[in-house]
């Protein structure tokens, strides 16, 4: 039994334009100690999915279906008190805008100590000492002095570290991070990611990392979920996602990453914008923007299937699954793209003459990757 099992979760919002299903039946699991990335554009419902784990969805939204099993118990069925016991203690959350996430009128140290005191019967002294130790652990220098500083006296990166310290204060089994590096400079971002990776490794904390940045995912995630318009469209171990993307949306995301030295004149984008969730497209939700779409895509909603076999997905986290009619054999023309990988043997040459392999489509041709071990995620 995995640490966290999400089963067909549905979250709705009631807006003046209609009912929006921000999360429309997603299922996944996280095992102890692993880092799962949840990727998608803004509006895909990733943050909502994360908030749902802590039952922090407020009106006008509500969870209307599915189960969220944490250590076997459905947390949607817990009482308010039991839920509060879980929050911060076993499942903790790190929010995007760290500056706004901290209360401006209390010191940073106090806010960390508060989390500790809420869940554990310790003296104020002990809580304070632990908070200072945490500040040091997350890389804040002079932690004892910083304990008494207010949030506005911290820089952006330090605020984010403080919020991470707050999240880790009670040694949670699962840490949910909602775009923790989005507002930060790239160099600061790297530091934060490294910190998260180290912490996860040390304390065997599982992490659910929500982001729109594929670079971040590549850095620290073991497995990845790609979310589009409230649905999971692809699930894979991280290496497979990058070397062997299956869903056209994932392909488009990867293709959109600008490359230095790219000779082409224009940047690639995925045409169109995210769909209106009040009235989503029929059939496959991505089909209006998909360059490989065929008539059947507008009619049939593609189920999530294992791409190797085409059989319905059973939730096995190590398999590679995608929600595209290609993998149920319903597309005529197939998906026309290639993944080109430049191996180290080509480093000496100037031009890009990569080994061309045909990927995707119905072939499922074998790939050999000499230099890169196809290791297990952990």
């Amino acid at each position, binding site marked *: 039994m995995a640490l966290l099992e999400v089963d067909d979760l549905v979250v709705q919002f009631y807006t003046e334009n209609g009912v929006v299903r921000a999360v429309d039946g997603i299922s996944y699991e996280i095992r102890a100690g692993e880092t799962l990335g949840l990727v998608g554009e803004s509006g895909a419902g990733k943050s909502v999915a994360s908030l749902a784990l802590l039952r*922090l969805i407020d009106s006008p939204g509500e969870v209307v279906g599915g189960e969220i099993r944490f250590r076997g118990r459905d947390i949607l069925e817990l009482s308010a008190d039991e839920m509060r016991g879980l*929050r911060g203690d076993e499942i903790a*959350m790190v929010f995007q805008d760290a500056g706004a996430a*901290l209360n401006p009128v209390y010191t940073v140290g106090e806010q960390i100590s*508060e989390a500790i005191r*809420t869940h554990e019967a310790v003296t104020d002294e002990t809580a304070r000492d632990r908070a200072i130790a945490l500040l040091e652990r997350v890389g804040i220098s002079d932690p004892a002095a910083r304990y008494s500083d207010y949030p506005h006296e911290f820089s952006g990166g330090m605020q984010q570290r403080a919020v991470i310290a707050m999240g880790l204060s009670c040694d949670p089994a699962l840490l949910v991070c909602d775009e923790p590096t989005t507002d930060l400079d790239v160099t600061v971002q790297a530091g934060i990611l490294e910190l998260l990776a180290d912490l996860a490794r040390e304390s065997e904390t599982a992490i659910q990392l929500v982001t729109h940045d594929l670079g971040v995912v590549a850095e620290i995630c073991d497995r990845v979920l790609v979310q589009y318009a409230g649905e999971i469209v692809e699930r894979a171990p991280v290496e497979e996602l990058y070397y062997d993307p299956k869903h056209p949306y994932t392909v488009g995301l990867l293709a959109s990453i600008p490359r230095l030295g790219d000779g082409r004149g224009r940047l690639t984008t995925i045409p169109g914008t995210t769909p209106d969730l009040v009235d989503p497209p029929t059939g496959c939700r991505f089909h209006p923007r998909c360059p490989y779409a065929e008539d059947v895509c507008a009619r049939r909603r593609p189920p999530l299937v294992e791409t190797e076999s085409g059989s319905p997905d059973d939730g096995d986290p190590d398999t590679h699954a995608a929600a595209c009619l290609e993998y149920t054999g319903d597309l005529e023309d197939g998906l026309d793209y290639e993944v080109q990988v430049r191996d180290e043997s080509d480093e000496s040459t100037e031009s890009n003459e990569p080994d061309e392999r045909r990927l995707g489509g119905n072939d499922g041709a074998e790939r050999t990757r000499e230099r890169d071990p196809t290791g297990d995620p952990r």
Partner: protein
Amino acid sequence: MTLGRYVWTRLLVTAPVLFGVTALTFSFVHLLPGDAVDAIIGFQDVSPAVEASIRAEYHLDQPVWKQYLLWLGDAATLEFGESPITGRDVAATIGRRLPATLTLGGAAWLLALAVGIPAGIVAAVRAGEPADELGRIAALAGIATPNFWLGLILLFVFSVRLGWFRVIPPDAPLASLAMAKFMLLPTITLGTASAALITRLLRSSMRQELEAAYVRTARAKGLSERTVILKHVLRNALLPVVTVAGLQLAFLVDGAVVVEQIFSWPGMGRLLVRSILRRDYTVIQAAVLVIGVAIVIANLLVDIVYAILDPRIRY
């Protein structure tokens, strides 16, 4: 910046304001129509000897700036001279009246806070429910009611018809039980509008703070809802109320002017009205000065309290 430096900075900023207040008050007599002497004596006919003595007493032959400084010096030592209209010492008159107004105003202010803050919290937490709607209407009614009307009605219902209270103050010292009992109606009259304002303000301030990101963080940490509201939200939501509480002081003085009339309360407000009607401008000038300076100082204190509560402002 530490709190100490902030206080110092505020003091420096307040000094020119005090200067302005005193200067404006000083110029009052000179802005009145006619010659300053005429204004002071209320346009009565007096003998040249009296006129000369007044000129000397108010330094009216000196250049304006010198007059101001002399007057300021006198005022600092609470030397306001005698009123040509009543013949009584101005400072003593004000001194007699001031405690009464301070007591009434203070009581009303405390009442406003004691009623307004809890009501605001309840309204914010129970937003949308009947309790909130009721509170909102009550608050609006409280603000819209002219305080003199409210006073008259309270006076009529409870004092005249029901006879629970006296109609005029008892002949007792200010600190006595009899006086306190009498003070109940005027305090309610004076404090209602402020209480209503604070309720509305706190409610909207808390609603706004409840949307803030740190509230979600607090809940995500597993804090009880009560802690979230009373520890995290309230502290932030009270900040605008503190600012307004300072402004309320001026508002209360205004209200006192009217309420004292209704309940015959022997305070500064009644003095002011009586003096206006009697054209006793020396008293008015002194009273306005006292009020102005008091409010400036009170606002300074409010600023300091605000800085204590909000660490961000010290920068």
